[in-house]
């Protein structure tokens, strides 16, 4: 059982992710943009994974990753980007900021859980 932060401006997507993750007994924390996601990350030092969208209002996914990186944590948990974006430049930027997997929306619960298994979450 792991505590997982889900960051997406769509409540529908957050609910779908929550359902898929709680089905296998993970605990979910939600945030609707990168700014709130960063605050949620600071408030939950026991997070084991972040699942994050790219295109969000106020602070987007890459913006949030930059905030995480600038906070210089001792150990940053793995990050999965779940997004409609597929540009290689963005993936490279994400990789440099700690992203371990890049998933294109829409997701299926099976595919998501397979990624978690591969990341040993």
């Amino acid at each position, binding site marked *: 059982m792991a505590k997982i932060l889900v960051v997406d*401006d*769509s*409540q*529908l*997507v957050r*609910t*779908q992710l929550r*359902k898929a993750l709680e089905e296998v007994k993970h605990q979910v924390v939600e945030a609707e943009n990168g700014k709130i996601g960063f605050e949620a990350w600071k408030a939950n030092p026991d997070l084991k994974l972040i699942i994050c969208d790219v*295109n*969000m*209002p106020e602070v987007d996914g890459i913006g949030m990753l930059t905030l995480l990186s600038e906070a210089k944590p001792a150990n940053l948990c793995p990050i999965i980007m779940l*997004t*409609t*974006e*597929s*540009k290689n430049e963005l*993936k490279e930027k*994400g*990789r440099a900021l700690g*992203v*371990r*997997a*890049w*998933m*294109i*929306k*829409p997701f299926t619960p099976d*595919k998501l859980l397979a*990624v978690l298994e*591969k990341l040993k979450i």
Partner: protein
Amino acid sequence: MEDSQIQAAFENFKNVLRTVTAKSLKDHSQMTDVEVGEVSGRSTCVYGHSMALILVAGGGIRLTFKAHYNRFDIEKIGANVLKYAKGKPIDRQVNDYMREYCNLSGGALKAALTGAGVGAGMSLPLVTRGFDEVFVLAEDSMVKQMSYVWQLRSQGCTIHCGVDVVIDREEVFPILEKLSVSAEEKDSDLEFL
């Protein structure tokens, strides 16, 4: 550039639009029975109480993708997904569903254009009243433009999709003429970095 070449480019692009938006709806609604239908009206007609829209632009092309809908249609079309909502879905959840649908369709269009060498960006999706369609006008310009409307039908319900496309550079037309997308799921939807 010859008019016939321009028309061929637009006709192929219409095919791409229908394929991409139908696949996005199938994936988003977790349904398999999405049909594409033709519409004879203009894209500036009001086709539903609400409209979700997104802008994809860059590399010589600007397009606004719009999905016109009525709430009761989306309650049925999105039933597999909106069942997650507590009780009967409220307006905000229906609108969120369509906003995300626009996001998926816009993202797929952007990926198709980017893959063909047209570097495009995408806005955040927006939901507004269907009546606001009358304010979304294709601009008069020296370049070619296209407006197109089609239907997506499932479960006896309909979403009217529309697009207004403005082409700023002639070099885009040969790209649009050859643009193709797959209706199947791709392995490239997941990458470990």
